[in-house]
């Protein structure tokens, strides 16, 4: 029995005195050797209760207590690992966030299930369960708290480290909890559910991240106006068509100047695409400095394009002034 190794020894705090099968004991031993005393948290004696949440915030699965103590701060490596905690654990854990600066998780990489070697269940179970504090911010951000790092970054005013970026020299990721198969009977269902939950959560956060990235590109007034997802998409469509029209007219238009009065007429006609409403009017935008001169392209003899982004200008008036549509 390896029980006597467990209590008190520096690197052995993970071991939980078990009276169960030998696998756990072996795992206990191996864990000691492999770890460098990462976890200094409290240990909870196990019992045979399948799943129980103790007041210390540990989850007991199949009689094996996983330590999720909050003061396991010795984790030096910044390993983004999906941790499985109950909700109240999460909330209490978030209050004790480490203040160490850590690189930010890239959400685009899915949690890759690493090939699971033949290992003891206990080891994997142990390796999976890390305290919230011990986790670097990316992992936690990836899991639960996306608003915090994002707000912090936004307050910096920069887009340097978007919260979706992996550092380039990150440590190899540890196996995620869903790779653990504690038992062959009954328990994998819980594992599968947890796996599905966390995968869905990760996917959702990825989508939200993409939405916020898109939001940054959409001009609004005021600039920090809150847009719903629907609005983000629609305004993005409007903006894209607006820019596309702008580009078409600048590139395809003649460069001869248009009188001021004509320009105003075009303005008043409320067309989104300048200069294309009438065949007789060349484009009035001239040649901006940055674009090549398109002298040879014929003036826009085309009909008015379908006003895709027409509502952009809110000047949707019925046509007047003799321009064909």
């Amino acid at each position, binding site marked *: 029995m390896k029980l006597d190794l467990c209590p008190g020894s520096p690197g052995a705090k993970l071991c939980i005195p078990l009276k169960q099968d030998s696998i756990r004991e072996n795992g206990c031993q191996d864990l000691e050797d492999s770890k460098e005393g990462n976890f200094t948290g409290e240990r909870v004696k196990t019992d045979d209760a399948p799943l129980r949440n103790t007041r210390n915030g540990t989850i007991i699965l199949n009689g094996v207590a996983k330590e999720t103590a909050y003061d396991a701060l010795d984790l030096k490596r910044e390993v983004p690992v999906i941790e499985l905690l109950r909700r109240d654990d999460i909330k209490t854990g978030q209050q004790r966030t480490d203040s160490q600066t850590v690189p930010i998780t890239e959400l685009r990489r899915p949690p890759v299930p690493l090939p699971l070697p033949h290992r003891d269940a206990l080891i994997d179970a142990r390796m999976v369960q890390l305290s919230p504090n011990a986790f670097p911010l990316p992992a936690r951000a990836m899991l639960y708290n996306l608003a915090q790092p994002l707000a912090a970054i936004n307050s910096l*005013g*920069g*887009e*340097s480290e978007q919260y979706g970026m992996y550092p*380039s*020299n990150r440590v190899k990721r540890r196996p995620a909890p869903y790779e653990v198969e504690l038992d062959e009977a009954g328990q994998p269902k819980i594992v599968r559910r947890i796996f599905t939950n966390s995968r869905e959560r990760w996917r959702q956060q990825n989508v939200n991240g993409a939405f916020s990235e898109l939001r940054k590109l959409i*001009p*609004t*007034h*005021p*600039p920090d106006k809150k847009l719903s997802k629907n609005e983000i998409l629609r305004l993005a469509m409007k*903006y894209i068509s*607006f820019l596309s029209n*702008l580009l078409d*007219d*600048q590139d395809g238009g003649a*460069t*001869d*100047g*248009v009188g*001021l009065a004509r*320009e*105003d007429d*075009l*303005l*008043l006609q*409320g*067309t*989104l695409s*300048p*200069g294309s409403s009438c065949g007789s009017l060349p484009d*009035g*935008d*001239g*040649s*901006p*400095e*940055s674009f090549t001169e398109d002298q040879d392209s014929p003036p826009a003899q085309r009909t008015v394009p379908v006003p895709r982004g027409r509502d*952009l*200008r*809110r*000047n949707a*008036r019925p046509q*007047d002034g003799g321009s064909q549509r």
Partner: protein
Amino acid sequence: MVFDKEESVSLVPLQSKGKPRVCAGCNRRIMDRFVLEALDRYWHEDCLKCACCDCRLGDVGSTLYTRANLILCHKDYLRLFGMTGNCAACSKVIPAFEMVMRARENVYHLDCFACQLCSQRFCVGDKFFLKNNMILCQLDYEGGHQNGNSADQAL
């Protein structure tokens, strides 16, 4: 020829002068008390909006910009048509109002500001070096540093 105009927008009270003004945006009579006057026309306050961000130009400021037959506010005008220069690393345009990194006379995109040999971005406090107008991190700089190159700065 480029038609960039910085117009003035003024809010004028409209009394009943006998001839009610017609809004240039919606082509309806303006029955409001206050009327925006711009581009020698009259507008509803709600009709004179930026083509890009849809802000009411009467509220935002006193100038509007017009270009390519579009009415734009100051910010959007600069964002769309402003000449801001190119990134020294990728030679692409730098859009207006974007965060940039500067090194001496060079301007870089925020994403482009990394060591050009190992593609590592810098942390606050890192030293970077300019060699042959290239950005280098400390390792790469000292790796190839044979002669005295004084073009180094601390970030």
